Structures are given as structure tokens and as C-alpha cells.
């Protein structure tokens, strides 16, 4: 039974695709799933960096596509997990170095021995994006609650929906205090506009950049609030009905700590 | 030269050539569009004639950052494919009278624009404006190549994150010898730098080694200004608004110090002080 193939995309750059792919992948692996992460951003690879695996790259996506190595040789096993591996992108090539069909074939091969294949899409709606989507049967669109991100997300939703693949939404970098003061669009606003199923809400967190810099996905910080959130997203992805956390001025942290203390 | 003058629009001087500057980064989301809009506004407020070109075919956003989305009637491809004159496509800014926008085509693809066409377009714009600022899309493919075509200067934007630095490094390589790019570090959070949770300006430029044009702090107000479509550079009293003006002044050749968030200056000073044996650690 082959695994689910999910592309993580957005249109707009910098909204958190790579961070989401890394953290969601790490969370699924923590839960015992076999996970393969594929970086489709040929030329501007970053998934390896975000996971701290950049020094272990031997082969990359394009070399697999060109038949210069086997997929299993290119996959880098993340030592922090039983079952997480990544296929890095090529750094010195361009996105047209691989066709959508070649990419889809690699994704399929990866999914034969995995429960989840998550594809980190590049920004934009050009060849790199098309490759990434070609390999997937489902999509997660990431947006921030800002006008330009949402507009671009709408564009990619349109493009993916044309292919009939199920699409779900993650609203990233939410600032609840700004929503309360009326200076940031709410999750509800975003959902009204995009009209796709909500998968998760991730608040802005100043530690995320630090974890990226260190190559330690924030989902690995057990006591952290984001690790709980990514866990909820993973559970929803697996079909569980998990209520969305309500963010309010009081702060998510206090509520979660209260909940944890209560067991 | 009289015959040449007749062909030009009233008000343009055929002999002058404005500066064409591309704003690029590789990584998306570091603030290219916001910076283009704000620097354009600041330069226009100084009296320069400025045109902003949105080179992000298919994903246009410069219009919405400027609050001009309801006024865009024609776009770059309408001009390149000769359906309209350049004049009809230039949207006058709502706030700054010397500022114009040339919007990207929302329903087209980047590969529908040829590099030679962009070069010709930018050359044409340079004859009519003092500054042509080109908002480059994310990536390093055709969209990027088209955006840099016709430009003779480049500003690279980088946030203090490893992925952004890596991407800028790649872009600088691709810009090649034609450009001597200057760096703007965007979205710095001096307090996080102090706590060791964010790269410092030195960390970033230690790797990139580019002339520093300016450093802009992370500013929640930017989100609000985009919500409203009113660039922050319209408010000089705001520190970030002021920073954009200082950068504009530098671009215009004024000898001003590199604008930096005050807290960042403090941090640098503290580090220097401790380096030389004084102060607290």
C-alpha cells in the first residue's frame, strides 16, 4: 500500500512552505510514520538546511532523475528519527532540469516504501511549482494572513483545483494580538476568501528563525507550543477530528500550559 | 534633434537617461515588493520622477501594496504586445504625484515575456523617468533574468536567516560582473540578535560582503500599511518610514550614514565595547 503524496505550496515566497514541510514531516515521523521529504526547489534548495542535513548531501533530485544514482542512495536518513528521510534538490541546476513526469516517477517510487511523501514546492507558479504538483495527489496550501499571500494562494488554489486534487489550508504566522486589534486578517477572513478546508493554524513564533538557523525543527521541542500545534495538524491529516486552538489575547502559551498541567 | 523631440511625450527630455535598479533576493518573502514600493515613494517625494515595474508575471502584488489594484487597466504585456501605448498602462500613484506603476499581467506566464522585450521596455522607461525600479520575482529562472534585463544597478534584499543568506549568495553569483549589488538587510530584530536567536548584520554581511545600503527593522506596521495600501514611506515620523527615506537619499548619491535601527546600533556598540575589554558581557 503506497503512501500519500502531498505537495506543500503557496505561490508567495517566504510564507513558511519549507518550515511547514520540515516540521510536519518531523511530527509525522515522531508518530511512527515512514516519511520522505522531497525538496523541489532546484537551484535554491533549503529543506536540507532547515533540517540541519546540509553537510550530508551526496546525491540530489536531478541526479536521481538523470539515472546517475538510485533514489535510495540519494535519500538522507535523519538520525533523529526512526523513519524520516529527505531527498535534497540540486543547487547548481535550474528547475527545467527535470520534467513533471520524471518528478512524478520519483515521488511514486518514494511513496512505495513510505506512509507520507511531502513535497516542498518552490515559490511561484512556473516550472518548479508544476513539477512539485505533478508528483502529488493532494495539496497543502500555506498562506500568511496578509493580502499579497492570500492573493497568491488564491492563484495556486485555482491552478491545483483545475487538476482535481484535494487542497487544504494552513494559515501560518498568525499574530492573535494584531487580529484582536483589527490590524490583521483573522483565520475566518482568510477561509472566507479562499474557501478551502482548513488544516491548521500556526501562530507567529520568534523561535522559528532560530531553529531554522540551527537546523533543529521546532516541532522537536517537546514543551514548545508549536510542537503541540504541528501535532494537531498531523492528527488532522490522519483523519482525526481535532478542534482548532482558539487564539486570544491571553496567549496560547498560558492556555496550553494550563492544559498540560491538567493532563 | 527636433524630430526626436516630436516623437516623445510632452515633458520628457530625449537625451537624459534615468537609472534602472532591480530589487532582487532569490528567496521569496523577504520584502522586495514592499521595499520597491517604499523606496519608490521616498524617491518620488524627493521630486524624482519614478516608475515601478512589477516583473512578477502571474503573481502581481506591487499594485496592491501601493493601493492601486483597482486602477490597473493595462499591464506590461499589453504594452509589449502593442495593444496599448505605454502611457495608457502607466498608473499614477494615489499618494505621490511623481510616481507611476507598470503592473504585471495577472493571467499570463513568465515565459510569455522575452528578455529582449524587457530590455527595450526598460530602455524606453529610462528616457522618461529618473528612476526605474524593477520588482523582481522570487527565484532565479526566466522571471529573474527578465527582471534584471535592462537594469544597470541591483539591490539585493536579505533577511537575517540562513536560507535567505544562502539564496542571496546564489543570486549575487548569477548577477555576475555587470552589477555591483548593494545590500539591504530587512526585518532585523535587534532584541533577538542580542539574545543570540537571530543572525546579526555582521553575520549576514560577513558572508555576503556587499556594500551595505541600509538595515530595516522588522516592523508590524508594515502589515497594516499593506492592508491599507499606503506605503510606510509616506510617514517619515515612523522609524522605518524614515529608514526608507535615508536609503533613498543614499541611492540619490547623498552622503548619509547607512540607516540602521537604533537598537541594532546599540547592539553593535555593545559588542564592540566588550571586544575591546570594556563594558558588561
Amino acid at each position, binding site marked *: 500500500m503506497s503512501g500519500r503524496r502531498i505537495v506543500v505550496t503557496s505561490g508567495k515566497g517566504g510564507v513558511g512552505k519549507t518550515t511547514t514541510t520540515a516540521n510536519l514531516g518531523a511530527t509525522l515521523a515522531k508518530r511512527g510514520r515512514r516519511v520522505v521529504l522531497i525538496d523541489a526547489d532546484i537551484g535554491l534548495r533549503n529543506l536540507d538546511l532547515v533540517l540541519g542535513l546540509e553537510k550530508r548531501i551526496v546525491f540530489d533530485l536531478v541526479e536521481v532523475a538523470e539515472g546517475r544514482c538510485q533514489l535510495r542512495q540519494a535519500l538522507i536518513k535523519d538520525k533523529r528519527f526512526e523513519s524520516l528521510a529527505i531527498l535534497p534538490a540540486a543547487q547548481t541546476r535550474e528547475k527545467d532540469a527535470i520534467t513533471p513526469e520524471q518528478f512524478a516517477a520519483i515521488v511514486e517510487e518514494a511513496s512505495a516504501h513510505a506512509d507520507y511523501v511531502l513535497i516542498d514546492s518552490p515559490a511561484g507558479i512556473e516550472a518548479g511549482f508544476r513539477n512539485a504538483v505533478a508528483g502529488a495527489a493532494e495539496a497543502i496550501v500555506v498562506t500568511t494572513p496578509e*493580502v499579497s499571500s*492570500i*492573493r497568491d494562494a*488564491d*492563484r495556486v488554489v*485555482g491552478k491545483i483545483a483545475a487538476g482535481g486534487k484535494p487542497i487544504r489550508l494552513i494559515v501560518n504566522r498568525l499574530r*492573535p494580538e494584531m*487580529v484582536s*486589534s*483589527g*490590524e*490583521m*486578517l*483573522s*483565520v*475566518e*477572513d482568510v*477561509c*472566507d*476568501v*479562499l*474557501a*478551502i*478546508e*482548513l488544516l491548521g*493554524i500556526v501562530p507567529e513564533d520568534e523561535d522559528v528563525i532560530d531553529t531554522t538557523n540551527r537546523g533543529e525543527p521546532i516541532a522537536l521541542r517537546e514543551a514548545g507550543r508549536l510542537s503541540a500545534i504541528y501535532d494537531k495538524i498531523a492528527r488532522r491529516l490522519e483523519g482525526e477530528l481535532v*478542534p*482548532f*486552538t*482558539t*487564539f*486570544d489575547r491571553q496567549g496560547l502559551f498560558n492556555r496550553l500550559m494550563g492544559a498540560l498541567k491538567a493532563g | 534633434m527636433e524630430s526626436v523631440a516630436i516623437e516623445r511625450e510632452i515633458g520628457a527630455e530625449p537625451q537624459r537617461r534615468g537609472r534602472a535598479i532591480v530589487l532582487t533576493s532569490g528567496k521569496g518573502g523577504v520584502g522586495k515588493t514592499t521595499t520597491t514600493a517604499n523606496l519608490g515613494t521616498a524617491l518620488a517625494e524627493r521630486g524624482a520622477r519614478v516608475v515601478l515595474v512589477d516583473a512578477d508575471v502571474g503573481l502581481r502584488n506591487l499594485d*496592491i501594496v501601493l*493601493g492601486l*489594484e*483597482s*486602477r490597473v487597466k493595462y499591464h506590461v504585456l499589453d504594452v509589449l504586445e502593442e495593444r496599448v501605448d505605454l502611457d495608457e498602462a502607466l498608473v499614477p500613484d494615489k499618494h505621490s504625484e511623481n510616481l507611476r506603476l507598470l503592473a504585471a499581467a*495577472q*493571467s499570463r506566464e513568465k515565459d510569455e515575456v522575452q528578455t529582449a522585450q524587457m530590455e527595450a521596455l526598460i530602455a524606453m522607461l529610462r528616457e522618461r523617468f529618473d528612476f526605474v525600479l524593477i520588482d523582481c520575482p522570487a527565484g532565479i529562472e526566466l522571471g529573474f533574468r527578465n527582471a534584471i534585463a535592462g537594469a544597470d544597478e541591483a539591490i539585493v534584499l536579505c533577511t537575517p536567516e540562513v536560507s535567505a543568506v544562502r539564496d542571496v549568495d546564489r543570486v549575487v553569483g548569477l548577477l555576475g560582473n555587470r552589477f555591483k549589488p548593494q545590500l539591504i538587510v530587512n526585518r532585523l530584530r535587534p532584541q533577538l540578535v542580542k539574545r543570540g536567536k537571530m543572525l546579526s548584520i555582521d553575520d549576514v554581511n560577513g558572508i555576503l560582503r556587499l556594500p551595505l545600503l541600509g538595515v530595516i527593522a522588522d516592523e508590524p506596521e508594515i502589515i*497594516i500599511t*499593506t*492592508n*491599507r*495600501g499606503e506605503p510606510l514611506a509616506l510617514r517619515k515620523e515612523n522609524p522605518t518610514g524614515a529608514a526608507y527615506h535615508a536609503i533613498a537619499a543614499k541611492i540619490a548619491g547623498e552622503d548619509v550614514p547607512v540607516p540602521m535601527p537604533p537598537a541594532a546600533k546599540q547592539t553593535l556598540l555593545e559588542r564592540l565595547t566588550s571586544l575591546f575589554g570594556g563594558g558588561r558581557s
Partner: protein
Amino acid sequence: MIEFLRRIFGQRGSSATAKERLRLVLMTDHLELSPDMIETMKRDLVDVISRHVEVDRERIDVTFERQESTLAMLANIPILSVGRPSANGNGKHEGRAPSPDGSARTSKPKRVAAQTGPGAEGQAPPKRKRRRRKKSPPAPATAPAAG
């Protein structure tokens, strides 16, 4: 009305403005991305109107115009003839005098000078049927429990 709206937006902060702008810009984006849909809409519109009056199908003009807080579709549909009102209210087929040779009478369409050249002099300005239709807002999403 506009002032009222502005006060509301102002009170509610920039996110209300943002949402409105986003809604409208997405409508425009969607239209720009759907030239086929616009053609179909034009055809359907003309088909419906033609059931009641005779129109010049060749000279239909449909544009979209941004108006304050909405997007409007403006259709300019030149009317060739309107039959005499009949008992059953159908103005199209009845009451039209047949010409001596039995063929249907046609008349030249006249447009208001806004876009086309001047019409024949001394004649009454032609009727211009304008139809303003607001584009429907995007479909409602499943409402999340998030605050």
C-alpha cells in the same frame, strides 16, 4: 454611505479594509483569468434579452468597472427593434408590421456618441440598455472554530 463605510472600516482597523480590497481584487483576478467565462456570460445575457427585444449581437460590449466598494458589469446592448406590447406581454414577435415583400424589417443600430461616431442627424438618441450586475461573492467556507 461611503463616509459611513469609512468610519466603520476606520473603527475596525486596517483588516476590514484589507478584506474588502482582497475580495475585490480577487474578483478582478478571477475575471482576468476567465475570458471564456466572460464570453459565455455575454452569450447567455444576449440570449435572454433576445427573447424580449431584438438586439444587435455583433455590437455587444461588456466591460467591468470598479465602483467604490463593488465591481460592476456594464453591458451595452444595442436594440434593433421593440415590438408593440401585446396582450400576453410578449413584445418581440407580435405587432411587427410585415414589409411588402414579407421579409422582416431591420433598422440600423444607433449608439450614443460616447464610443462611436455621430449617428444620423436629427434622430432621437437610441435606447441604450444597461444592465448592472454585481458579481456574486465567493462561496462561503467551512467556518473554523478558531478565534
